[in-house]
């Protein structure tokens, strides 16, 4: 339930108020819960686990509030970053994570790498994505599966917008190489 978009000024005002009184964090929790739950669920693919990790991410955000410094970026990206760290903590002993994606989610990526929108080609794209290391895979997920803009991708990964853009283009080039005939 996302009632309406919250602008950066409103978010900042809530964060400042929440620093003094944690109970004032509630509007952000209500506003971003669904977004964060879906972000986690796309990766965890389990509702109970997604709920636990989402709650834990909000708790960590509240505890980190005194150290939060606004840099003009949306709170959503900050929350995604915390949630991603929680997921990594949860998966620290796993060697492999399987992610289900729909045709709709990979459509943008398929267009970028010049892969035709056909079932066989999309499966080839999935196999090419399997070959990416964790960092490269995370970039692609944030940009194409979560639909974040480059500024948000950068904020989630702790890099600048330009760096996020440049690295994404490099990963796309790697994917094109993997998809080229004979590789």
């Amino acid at each position: 339930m996302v009632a309406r978009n919250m602008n950066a000024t409103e978010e900042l005002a809530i964060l400042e108020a929440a620093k003094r009184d944690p109970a004032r964090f509630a509007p952000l929790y209500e506003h971003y819960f669904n977004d964060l739950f879906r972000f986690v669920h796309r990766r965890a693919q389990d509702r109970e686990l997604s709920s636990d990790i989402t709650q834990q991410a909000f708790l960590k955000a509240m505890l980190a509030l005194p150290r939060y410094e606004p840099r003009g970026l949306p709170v959503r990206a900050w929350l995604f970053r915390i949630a991603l760290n929680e997921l990594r903590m949860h998966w620290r002993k796993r060697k492999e994570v399987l992610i289900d994606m729909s045709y709709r989610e990979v459509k943008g990526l398929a267009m970028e790498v010049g892969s035709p929108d056909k079932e066989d080609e999309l499966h080839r794209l999935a196999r090419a994505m399997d070959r990416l290391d964790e960092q490269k895979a995370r970039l692609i997920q944030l940009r194409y599966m979560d639909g974040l803009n480059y500024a948000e991708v950068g904020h989630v990964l702790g890099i600048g917008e330009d760096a996020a853009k440049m690295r994404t283009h490099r990963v796309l080039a790697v994917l094109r190489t993997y998809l080229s005939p004979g590789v």
Partner: protein
Amino acid sequence: MKYRYRISPEGRADEPTDAEIGKYRDAERLRYNYHKASELLHRRPLYKDPKAFIALVVIVLLALFIAEVLDKETPGSTPQQDERIAP
């Protein structure tokens, strides 16, 4: 850790709706967990509390004193043991 992908027309089988996600939203639980966590975070360590620190020092000194007294009250126990061990 490696990611593996499975691409299908529908994607994740059990994509939750807004109403279903709403069931997991629990601001009260978050507030309770926050108070519990912040209590733990801001709890003063025992050694930084002057009263607890003095109490700890007194307990350690008492233990040392009792050990000394007991050691003096039972003289010769160690030499006897030594004699038994010696060939």
